[in-house]
């Protein structure tokens, strides 16, 4: 146990060294350039970060803006999951449905969600609804594709066991297909959360928004406050990392059975 944790510490230590080196390089460059409009120094960025409850640029605080973005991401993410998981189960289960839907999905999938922004604004108006649409769209496909793959990877034998016990189609989906595909679905959720997080920042940068991390980054850009931009980026990075760690922990906790039979 001690050995494992020591190993972990060493592993994290290596990563930490690179981060510290990058920070030192940044700070040195900032000192040499000595121009806040090109490269703000770390102390200025840290100053914004360490006063997260203070109003930023005369508006809401960093925390309030972060909460706005997080709420948007979670809403869009859950909407996407609520649609993509059942649809993925059906597509993976039925060759017929897959034959109908797969070509359309494969064409729509590579389109960057942000490209839909003009349509989103035309359909939902400027504001939260358009942003939610973009987030949900970005999160939708990774969940869908992973769910379909998860269902395809289910062992036929498991389904036969359900058949032997006279399970109904719904029961097969509920008791075998869904739990069997869940590890892959979880992977899809992890990937799509990261994408949703990117989408929210991009969507908030568009005109018409009044809050969120993307908004303050863009607003700070217009005012030439690069330290605020830096602080916003750090928050984005840390939340992304935290979410990924949560998903990984969930994977280790709930799906340790995967691949072991």
């Amino acid at each position, binding site marked *: 146990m001690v050995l494992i944790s020591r190993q972990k510490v060493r592993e994290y230590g290596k990563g930490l060294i690179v981060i510290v080196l990058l920070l030192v390089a940044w700070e040195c460059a900032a000192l040499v350039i000595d121009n806040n409009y090109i490269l703000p120094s770390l102390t200025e960025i840290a100053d914004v970060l360490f006063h997260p409850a203070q109003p930023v640029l005369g508006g809401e605080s960093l925390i309030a803006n972060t909460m706005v973005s997080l709420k948007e991401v979670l809403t869009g993410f859950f909407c996407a999951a609520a649609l993509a998981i059942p649809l993925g189960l059906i597509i993976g289960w039925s060759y017929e449905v897959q034959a109908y839907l797969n070509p359309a999905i494969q064409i729509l999938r590579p389109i960057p969600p942000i490209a839909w922004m003009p349509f989103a604004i035309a359909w939902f108006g400027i504001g939260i609804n358009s942003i939610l649409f973009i987030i949900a769209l970005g999160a939708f496909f990774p969940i869908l594709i992973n769910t379909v793959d998860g269902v395809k990877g289910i*062992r036929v*034998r*498991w389904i*036969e*066991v*359900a*058949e*032997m*016990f*006279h*399970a*109904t189609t719904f*029961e097969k989906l509920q*008791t*075998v297909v869904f*739990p*069997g595909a*869940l590890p892959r679905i979880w992977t899809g959720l992890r990937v799509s959360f990261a994408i949703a997080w990117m989408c929210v920042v991009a969507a908030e940068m568009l005109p018409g928004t009044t809050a969120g991390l993307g908004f303050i980054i863009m607003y700070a850009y217009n005012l030439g406050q690069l330290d605020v931009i830096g602080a916003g980026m750090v928050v984005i990075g840390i939340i992304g990392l935290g979410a990924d760690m949560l998903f990984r922990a969930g994977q280790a906790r709930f*799906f*340790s*059975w*995967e691949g*072991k*039979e």
Partner: protein
Amino acid sequence: MMAEQILLVSGVQKTFHSEGKSCQALAGVSFAVAAREVVCIMGPSGCGKSTLLRIIGGLDCADAGSIHGISGRGGDGVSAAMVFQDHALFPWLSVEENITYGLRLSAQKESKEETQRRTAELLSLTHLDSFARSPPHELSGGMKQRVAVARALAIRPSLLLMDEPFSALDTFTRKELEDEILRIRQELKTTILMVTHNPEEAVYVADRIIILSERPAVVSEIIPVSIPHPRSPTNPECIRIRELVTLKCRGGPGLIGDEVGYQTPVL
């Protein structure tokens, strides 16, 4: 002497089609199984033993012929449950949850108390009490197969179908499970129909051994084994039947037996 007949297989035929080619596996297989019998199905490898068992279990459809006695969903007749060679446990469920799987489906739904009682019974019957909450991947091969047997028995099947259930296990574990099967038959009065490729196993557990011919398969011989349990593998009668079965499964006397210098046993 023959007890009540529980299963009647008559004229079952099955042909597989793939990429324009067709391959007949079963060419009219007929036999009957009496209640509380242990019947082993043997035959040359690839002769369609598993296919036959899957048809009886309702996982495949026969092209012609009929199966009498097994109930489908909500039908009358006896219930059947199957144990597969590769245990096929659900890895995301605990041992206990795997065992109760069939009882939680609408077709066999039982009250919570009844399910609990049944689980406890099966756990002790299969000596798995202390592993009730373990995930299957923490169990040994023999224990996993025990869970699979308990899962099949949970729905109180009159007929237990087993498709080479112990072939992936080591000799000692296999012996242990063979004894367990005989004990289960004794305690639960379950009828057992088992596909095996191991003559020793067949002679050890079976009341009758059904030998299928090579593909396309028909029943080539039914060998009764009326030796009292426990059977010793060194019992001369056991040896005789084992040799006979081995020979039959290889294609019969005078075919392959002579080529390899096999001594035709005196029958």
